């Protein structure tokens, strides 16, 4: 049986449905990320697990015990917020000692544990500072150390890195991953940032309107989005319309007809008429690609924007669909809006979605 087992959780605020029947199972020691746009119910689920939000229906079982209505104080789950929530009147060491004093550990044991936690988050030299005297990243490390000090069964993190700048966020991601591996604690991490989710998680649960719409390993979710929402939410994906003619087994899109790509399944994606496909910007090649088995089409450049590692092109195809693609910087030097590019995509890179979602 799973370590954490959430069943059919529902929570409404007046007419707003925050959780609409959420099922989730997590194994001990797993790093699971709840990923979704703002307002999709991630915090509500996390706070239900923590015990601060009482679900209307459904249950939460941890290690075989139903904790749905247990007080938060008794759950032994660490909680880390975006705003750190450090006790401003206590020093770094006293903040970390707080849960240990509450548990009435003896002095020597508390001192040793605080020492150990300070070393774990690399803040030994800051033990006597007040939170206000630390940078955002350091404060967040104190908050994590404090939440891990007493050996919680689960660590719940609600967008803990969102307030940090980009470089710091990336080093904190590595730090969190290391802490997860060193402590072996189960992490449930909330974010709206997909790169953050990819970088750290064992599994990602994608939230949409109070439901988990897809759950799986990062690469699996990226490669196989199973609904229009997930395909659109993850990675600046190109969603396009194609026309399926069952009679001759062809799909028509971007102004050419081709035989059915390998990932197209008429039974799932549409037997006849309009179907929905997607292709990643990085899978569209520009110029004269070498491989033979490609689908080629012309597209007119609408906009060029520099994104740092590459140039991002927005183009329209001859059948009027807008696509985004990426080309190396040197390649884009002569490209101007209005230019017509010859594009190519491998049939196996094209995915399809069931029509109704």
């Amino acid at each position, binding site marked *: 049986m799973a370590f954490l087992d959430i069943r059919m959780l529902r929570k409404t605020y007046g007419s707003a449905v925050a959780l609409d029947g959420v099922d989730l199972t997590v194994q001990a020691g797993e790093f699971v990320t709840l990923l979704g746009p703002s307002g999709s119910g991630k915090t509500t689920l996390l706070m239900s697990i*923590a015990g601060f939000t009482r679900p209307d229906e459904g249950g939460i079982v941890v290690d075989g015990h139903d904790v749905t209505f247990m007080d*938060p104080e008794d759950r032994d789950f660490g909680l880390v917020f975006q705003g750190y*929530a450090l006790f401003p009147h206590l020093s770094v060491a006293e903040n970390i000692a707080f849960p240990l004093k*509450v548990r009435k550990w003896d002095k020597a044991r508390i001192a040793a544990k605080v020492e150990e936690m300070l070393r774990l988050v690399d803040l030994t030299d800051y033990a006597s500072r007040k939170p206000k005297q630390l940078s955002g990243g350091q404060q967040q490390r104190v908050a994590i150390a*404090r*939440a891990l000090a*007493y050996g919680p069964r689960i660590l719940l993190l609600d967008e803990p890195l969102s307030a940090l700048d980009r470089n710091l966020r990336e080093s904190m991601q590595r730090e969190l991953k290391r802490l997860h591996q060193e402590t072996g604690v189960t992490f449930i991490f909330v974010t709206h940032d997909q790169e953050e989710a990819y970088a750290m998680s064992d599994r990602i649960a994608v939230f949409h309107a109070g439901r988990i719409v897809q759950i799986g390993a990062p690469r699996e979710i990226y490669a196989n989005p199973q609904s229009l929402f997930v395909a659109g939410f993850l990675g600046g994906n190109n969603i396009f319309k194609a026309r399926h003619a069952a009679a001759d087994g062809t799909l028509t899109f971007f102004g050419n007809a081709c035989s059915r790509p390998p990932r197209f399944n008429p039974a799932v994606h549409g037997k006849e008429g309009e179907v929905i496909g997607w292709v990643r910007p990085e899978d569209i090649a520009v110029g004269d690609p070498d491989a033979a088995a490609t689908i080629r089409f012309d597209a007119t450049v609408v906009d060029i924007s520099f994104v740092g590692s590459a140039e991002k092109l927005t183009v329209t195809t001859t059948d009027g669909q807008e696509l985004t693609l990426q080309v190396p910087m040197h390649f884009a030097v002569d490209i101007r809006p209005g230019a017509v590019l010859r594009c190519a995509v491998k049939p196996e890179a094209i995915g399809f979605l069931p029509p109704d979602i």
Partner: protein
Amino acid sequence: MMPGWILLQRLLPRIAAWLLLAFLFLPILVVIPVSLTDREYLSLPDQSLSLQHFASLLNWRAGWLPSMITSIGIAIASSLLATALAAAFAIGAWVHAGRWPTAMRLILLSPLIVPPIIYAVGMVRLWSRFNLLDTWIGVTLVHMILSMPLAVLAIGASLANLDPRLVQAARSLGARPPIVFAKVILPNILPGVAAGAVFAFITSWDEITVTLFITSRRIVTLPRKIWTSIADSVDPALAAIAAVMLLVTIVGLLIRMLVWDGRTPNRS
């Protein structure tokens, strides 16, 4: 431009500010020389300064000392009660920032808005029904109610700087509500609580309007004693007692300022 004009432009606001300050404070400060007069009626000192009127305050039969003790007792009791209730209310409102605290706040702050005389008439009716007119409890409760607004505002102000998530953080770390209160909330709002208590004390200490209506013979607070004395004498002891009251109020404000400044290094 002419330098004189610039000088005037710069100096005028300053002069105006000082004049206004003098206008506010001189009448208050004049009681000090009058209290030191060597004559037997209210006047400025004639030949020499004298402490005789301060000495007469200590005469029990003159009634000043008992009134002072009454006032201090009521002020301590009502300010302690007001501070405790104000803290409970302010913290409750801070934790559940929902709708009823807003309505409650309005009711609680009403003594600041409702004219004291209207309040006084209402209290007379209410207290006569509960047989609380001219009793210690009656006066203490009224003073408590009147001091609540300032205490709530002072405590609320220090709570406004505190992240409500601290409560969730503390509870997730295993702290039950009493520990959350004692170890997390209270240490962070202590300056506000102290300021609230001082405000409440001062409010009770010089309250006169409502007190006049709800007391008669048994409870004679210091302001009431002054009030009745002014009506039938020109005893310079009045000026002496006014100087004492002034002193107590100033000491109270100083304590509050010290507490307030004492917390500044902590915050930056």
